[in-house]
């Protein structure tokens, strides 16, 4: 997804600027905006990634539900072209982590991680969907990993539905890679 597709943003949300997420629902001024607490809870509930992981970071919304994560703090709002990196898509029924966030923090995940075989990993990185009936965990967004250089490494985000693992690796990140 590009920023342009965010249009003017949700009602009450200025699509041209980054607004820091409110800490909690009590501090929320823009309807529908995720809170910092919700974002931290989501990473912990979905993937077991501890809230302390993001202790030094601030979260920002731009447009319609795209959340950015920044390593430090800045006054809000920010009218620049980027504040940190995209981390999450909210304002939809199922929140969706970004490929880049999963690649950065996915190694810390303790659940909803699917370890792919060499052939499966290559197909996944190329953007192919594949039948994977052996997965008996949750449906929804998973972190797909493979074995490389002595450990499991996150490749990207998969969407698991009806015995199928869909690769949601964005086109710009899809690549034909060697089978290890």
């Amino acid at each position, binding site marked *: 997804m590009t920023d342009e597709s965010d249009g003017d943003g949700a009602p009450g949300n200025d699509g041209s600027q980054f607004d820091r997420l409110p800490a909690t629902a009590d501090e929320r001024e823009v309807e529908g905006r995720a809170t910092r607490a919700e974002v931290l809870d989501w990473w912990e509930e979905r993937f077991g990634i501890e809230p302390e992981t993001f202790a030094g970071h601030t979260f920002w919304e731009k447009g319609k539900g795209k959340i950015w994560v920044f390593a430090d703090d800045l006054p809000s709002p920010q009218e*620049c072209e980027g504040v940190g990196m995209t981390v999450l898509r909210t304002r939809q029924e199922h929140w969706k982590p970004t490929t880049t966030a999963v690649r950065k923090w996915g190694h810390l995940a303790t659940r909803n991680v699917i370890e792919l075989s060499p052939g499966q990993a290559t197909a996944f990185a190329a953007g192919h969907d594949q039948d994977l009936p052996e997965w008996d965990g949750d449906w929804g967004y998973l972190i797909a990993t493979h074995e490389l250089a002595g450990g499991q490494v996150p490749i990207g985000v998969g969407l698991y539905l009806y015995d199928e693992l869909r690769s949601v690796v964005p086109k710009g990140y899809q690549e*034909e*890679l060697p089978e290890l």
Partner: protein
Amino acid sequence: MNDDGGVLDRYAPLVDDEAAFRAACDRPLPSVVRVNTLATDADRVARAFDEEGTDYERVDWHDGLFRMADRSPGTTWPYAHGWVHGQEEVSCLPAIALDPDPGTRVWDTCAAPGSKTTHLAALMDDAGILVGNDTSLGRLSALRHNAERLGVTNLVVDQQDARNYSLNGFGFDEFDATLVDAPCSCEGTIRKNPDAFDTWTLDHVHEVAGIQKGVLRRAVQATRPGGTVVYSTCTFAPEENEAVLDHVLRDEDCRVVEWDCPLESVSGVTEWKGEEYDRQVTRATRVYPHHNDTGGFFLAKLRVGGGGEREGAEADTGSEVGA
């Protein structure tokens, strides 16, 4: 042979071995990748390349650089994971020279497409505030993509004219360190872009030198006393290198300081085409293609003055900044 249109003739008096210089400019550059230490370390990259059968050679002067046998590192697992980034050896010098500390405030004035910016982020350990500025929205989108690909979270991407850059909105009014990797006539990239000389004119050299002076002046103004500014180009033209330094040394409170260049290099020149430059420019660094089999490069490290300037000010940086 590259048709340099006679451009290289003007630099013959500056180089120690003209034949070697010309021969190097005619050879294509090896493809090189830099290890993204935000994601992994060099030994793990080497192991991953070995596992997938990708050939490489470790660069002797820098642990985190690999020369690739195949010219397209994009189709490797380490690249797909954001463990490496395609970046020529000489273009790693500016971040090494600036040597920013984690937790500090750093401005990259001409940041896109972001090889040096992401290198700065790695040296900062992704902590503090790194502002990557550029004028072109198209190039900024490449910067954002590269920063995301490498997992950089301490970068603010900004679009302003660096010559009159405003820090409004950041909640602080000066940087600890600034990189001016200036737009230039790119003569040093001839080995990568064989058509770099097609559009070369002396008028363009003078025009771009004007921009370089404006950006470097603003960089010195926007950096705190005792802070560091690195000026770099990929051109051989003294008009864009020592002459720019000379101009800024006269108009702004700063001085050129020594730095330890890890590549073979020579000093900046104090005379060119009847002009004489401030002696301090001899502390600048010229890297020619035949010295290390790289692209060409120019770099100078400046210390910003300001009354109570002191030699050891850099060491105090960590306690002066914060969220």
